[in-house]
């Protein structure tokens, strides 16, 4: 049995937060093969629901809740004069409690063959009824587990050995989740060549994940981000000085772990990727002066900032297994294309109301984003988008820009482009021998762009 908490932040009074992807991640990370995930809301104004993630249907649900328990309908609970021990910040929320009664606070989901058992249209929602707030769900995973994931064990082992001032913030970040795509790519590609050493591959995969997280810690300082993976960022929780030190420590630790593996080609491949990430991060910040930028600048930055480590993860795993040079090259190109597609999908998540993240964060932080670039070029909405982005961006402006992006063709274009890149990535795999891993690499590429969080 494994017990965990899922953290998320809501941005609206009523909001359907799709937690399906997070639950799938937890099942995968825990190695649960056959069993159940028990889910419990820890709040009296957050309910749970299993239904279809279709935006208009979610609006219907909201209207239904409003109809059945209208806000401001004179609830006894809101008569503070008659209640005892009322907190100073007690909200007027009788309607939210009554709405929660119409939903459920508990759910049990089945797991078979390592996957949540959900129908084609079913998604799992945490339903915010009195937001915006920070929220958490308790989950327990129960059943038959496979042998523990080697990468998770290696990550835990490495973090156990480090001094608390650096280990605790990194542990919070690592334990908060993440898709672990880069280490999965290392592990998969390390099974392609003739030399297969699972422990060395797990060490490399864990080092790549630590490196990725180290870059996120510095990014969050630069972007002034307050939350990541539903929890306060290291800079928000510990301050800038500590965040810089933690990022440096794990940059150094990851490079040491990779050097200790003792494969010069692997070391050089990953080192070149780190350099590309850092150079692109400088370009990214510089381009904020000409926000939202253009397609060429976007691709240049994303190739370095995101795709370089995807590509290095694929190539380094294959190199570790002594795969043939043409196989390493093809996997490197697969990783590059997949990384760009992944970033495009990530940009789209910023405009999804069900992602568990505040909508429009990229707009607010003036982060390079392809939907914004396309919306700014749009004949209909472009002039207003450009005018808004040129001024200061408060809540109203961010909301309006997000609305304009949604009303334009931008998200469809980005989605099409991301899927096109995935097909191009898969094309790279056609001519090489993959020792039975082709379906997994195809599935991983497709799932990286078809997501809502």
């Amino acid at each position, binding site marked *: 049995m494994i017990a965990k908490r899922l953290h998320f932040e809501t941005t609206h009074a009523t909001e359907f937060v799709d937690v399906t992807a997070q639950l799938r991640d937890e099942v995968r990370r825990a190695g649960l093969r056959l069993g159940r995930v028990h889910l419990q809301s820890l709040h009296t104004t957050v309910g749970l629901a299993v239904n279809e993630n279709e935006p208009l249907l979610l609006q219907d649900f909201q209207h239904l809740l409003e109809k059945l328990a209208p806000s401001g309908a004179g609830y006894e609970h809101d008569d503070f004069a008659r209640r005892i021990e009322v907190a100073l910040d007690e909200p007027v929320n009788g309607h939210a409690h009554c709405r929660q009664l119409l939903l459920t606070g508990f759910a049990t989901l089945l797991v078979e063959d390592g996957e949540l058992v959900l129908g084609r249209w079913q998604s799992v929602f945490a339903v915010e009824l009195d937001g915006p707030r920070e929220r958490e769900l308790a989950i327990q995973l129960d059943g038959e587990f496979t042998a523990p994931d080697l990468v998770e064990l290696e990550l835990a082992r490495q973090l156990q050995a480090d001094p608390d001032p650096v280990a605790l913030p990194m542990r919070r970040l690592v334990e908060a989740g993440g898709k672990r795509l880069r280490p999965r790519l290392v592990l998969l590609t390390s099974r392609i060549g003739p030399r297969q050493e699972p422990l060395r591959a797990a060490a490399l995969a864990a080092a790549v994940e630590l490196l990725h997280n180290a870059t996120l810690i510095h990014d969050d300082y630069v972007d002034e981000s307050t939350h990541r993976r539903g929890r306060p960022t290291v800079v928000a929780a510990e301050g800038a000085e500590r965040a810089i030190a933690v990022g440096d420590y794990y940059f150094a630790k990851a490079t040491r772990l990779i050097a200790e593996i003792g494969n010069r080609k692997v070391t050089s491949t990953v*080192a070149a990727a780190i350099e590309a990430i850092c150079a692109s991060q400088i370009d990214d910040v510089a381009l904020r002066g000409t926000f939202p930028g253009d397609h060429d600048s976007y691709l240049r930055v994303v190739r370095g900032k995101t795709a370089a480590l995807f590509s290095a993860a694929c190539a380094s795993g294959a190199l570790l297994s002594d795969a043939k040079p043409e196989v390493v090259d093809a996997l490197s190109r697969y990783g590059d294309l997949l990384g760009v597609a992944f970033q495009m999908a990530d940009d789209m998540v910023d405009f999804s109301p069900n992602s568990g993240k505040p909508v429009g964060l990229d707009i607010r932080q003036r982060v390079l984003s392809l939907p914004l670039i396309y919306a700014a070029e749009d004949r209909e909405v472009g002039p207003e988008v450009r005018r808004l982005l040129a001024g200061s961006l408060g809540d109203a402006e961010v909301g309006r820009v997000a609305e304009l992006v949604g009303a334009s063709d931008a998200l469809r274009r980005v989605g099409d482009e991301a899927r096109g890149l995935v097909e191009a990535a898969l094309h790279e795999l056609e001519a090489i021998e993959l020792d039975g891993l082709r379906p997994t690499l195809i599935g991983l590429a497709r799932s990286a762009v078809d997501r809502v969080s």
Partner: protein
Amino acid sequence: MSVQVIDRELERLEGLWADGLSDAYRSYLGAVETFDAEAQPKLALAAALIEVGLRLQGLGGPAAPPAALLMGDLCLARASRLLADAASQRVQVAFATAIGDMASSAASGTLGRPVRELLLNAFEPSR
């Protein structure tokens, strides 16, 4: 040879050369005389980039503004790639350990050993 190497490896970091990087580089050259002639400028430059990079980031002191942090990150990344190209596994591990020690001291608010002393030590053969 060394001038060509340095020119090539200073891309995007040219401004730092006159701002302490050249002095740091020269001070490390003496420590790398026992290494292959071809590797010497890369190793000395890697050490100098780490020293300057950590200073730019403000590690152990007040945090640097974002632009300086990113420049510092690029210095460390460039140094890491130079070491991957030119250093033995022992030297690569020693440098990474030295950076880790400095970052750990900074995170715990304790005074660590001076950067240059730690990096010069990383070139020494292990005993």
